[in-house]
């Protein structure tokens, strides 16, 4: 898979993840899962999903062009 395709795919997954932040289906659910309310557990898991997303972005969509050579630097 070429870089622009994988980058595009990752951005789509990112959008999907953002939408999944809005867990309307758990709004009134007070069940306890592992000692915590299910809506709380969902958002803790969301943090781990965010960490995974960032790992994928860093690995497959890193902006390589940002590397700065000493020669490129302008005097302040």
């Amino acid at each position, binding site marked *: 898979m070429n870089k622009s395709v994988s980058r595009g795919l990752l951005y789509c997954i990112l959008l999907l993840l953002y939408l999944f*932040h809005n867990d309307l289906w758990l709004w009134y659910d007070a069940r306890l899962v592992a000692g915590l309310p299910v*809506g709380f557990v969902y958002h803790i898991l969301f943090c781990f999903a965010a960490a995974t997303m960032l790992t994928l972005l860093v690995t497959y969509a890193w902006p390589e062009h940002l590397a700065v050579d000493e020669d490129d630097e302008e005097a302040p």
Partner: protein
Amino acid sequence: MTLTIIILYLCLVVAIGSLSHRLFRGTGEDYFLASRSLGSFLLLMSLFGTNMTAFAILGASGEAYHEGIGVFGLMASSSALIIPLVFFFIGTRVWALGKRLGLLTQVQYFRQRWGSDALGLALFIILIALLIPYLLIGVSGGGITLHQITKGQVPEWVGGLLVCSVVMIYVCYGGLRGTAWANAFQTVVFVTLGGTAFFFILQQHGGLLAAMKAVSASNPDLLIRGDHIKPLKLLTYTCIPLSVGMFPHMFMHWLTARRAETFRVPLKLYPIFIAAVWVPSVTLGVIGRLDFPDLHGPAANSILVRLIDLHAPEVLAGLLAAGVFAAVMSSLDSQVLSIGTMFTQDIVRHYGFREQMSERHQILYGRFFVCAVLVVTYVLSLTTDRSIFKLGVWSFTGFAALFPLVVAALFWRRSTKYGAAASLATVVCLWTYFFQLGWATPGHTVGGAGIMPVAVILAGSTLAMIIGSLLTRPPDESVIRRFFPQP
């Protein structure tokens, strides 16, 4: 005993911050940006420590006390996604430009990008005005902590004075490097001690399940979002973390990275660190209802300290209070240094010395402004409202609403100074309007539908940027070539 531990802790922070002075190279760039030499570990710790304020530690638990577990989704998990994304898309690019062009401050960048002194000055004033309430959060947080943990023996003004004095010493002496070292130490302290407090207090309640069952019996509404938080509020609250894109202190920390790759580790770990701090904070806020059922308004901001005081033995209480101090100071130091840097570089050096300022003078002025900002903040903290959370949200709202500026500057070649000025003016007008409404009616949302004012202000400032830019002459080709070099 508690007070002794806190004082010992503060001495340790001063020692660590000052120790960094051994590496000082005597230049302005070294004092303000540690010669752009920080590695991944220090970058992660200083980015995270700077962003986790008394707002997260005290304000979040206070808010969870009133609103329940929904506070986590509202502020923590949204930040876990949005903040590292801002670092990824904005921070890395700002670092590259800063390194290539020798930039030291945010205002310098915008002033040069759009070739306008007036725009730079307006932005300088707005950024400082928005940072002041954020600074007050830290100083008030220190005061509340010490007052509560010593059972009222030490007045709040002494706590604030202690925080300001310690920060003044190590920021003046160590500059950015001292701040980063102290931040790293303090981040480890507040994450570790926060976790300790969490398990200790839970144990006193018979474990997590027993505590949650007790909350379920007494305050079942705290375990759901229910009517506390409207769905549109959850959606639009995700605009608030965009504020990191315009915080002067975050901008300053981005510039300190050794190379672009230095960002990789902080980006991956940032969401986990957010969860590690906010899960205990929100859980303890909810459980606090069991021990202190009748706290009203801002009084709930002290719930964490009250729990520590009630359940932890004296030695642990002292250590945990030190943890709260750590969170407070690790933000205050960077904010104060960034303001000192802005005054020195954007006002004194730019207007007073026409950019011709010796290294020695830069450092001298930097130190002077750090002291002056701390003195002013401390005096203000003695006279202003102590509702930490309320202050924080309005500060964040303003910074988030300025986000279109940095996006346009970095990604939109066609953006112009007039577009940026229109965007700034829109933010000022709308922010003032909503601030008045929100201050009179806490929890105010647009039309009562749950839409956070930040979403409306952000939309307005984006629109103003687009229209203002398209209606005016495109920027010169030389500017474009300088800021958008061909890869």
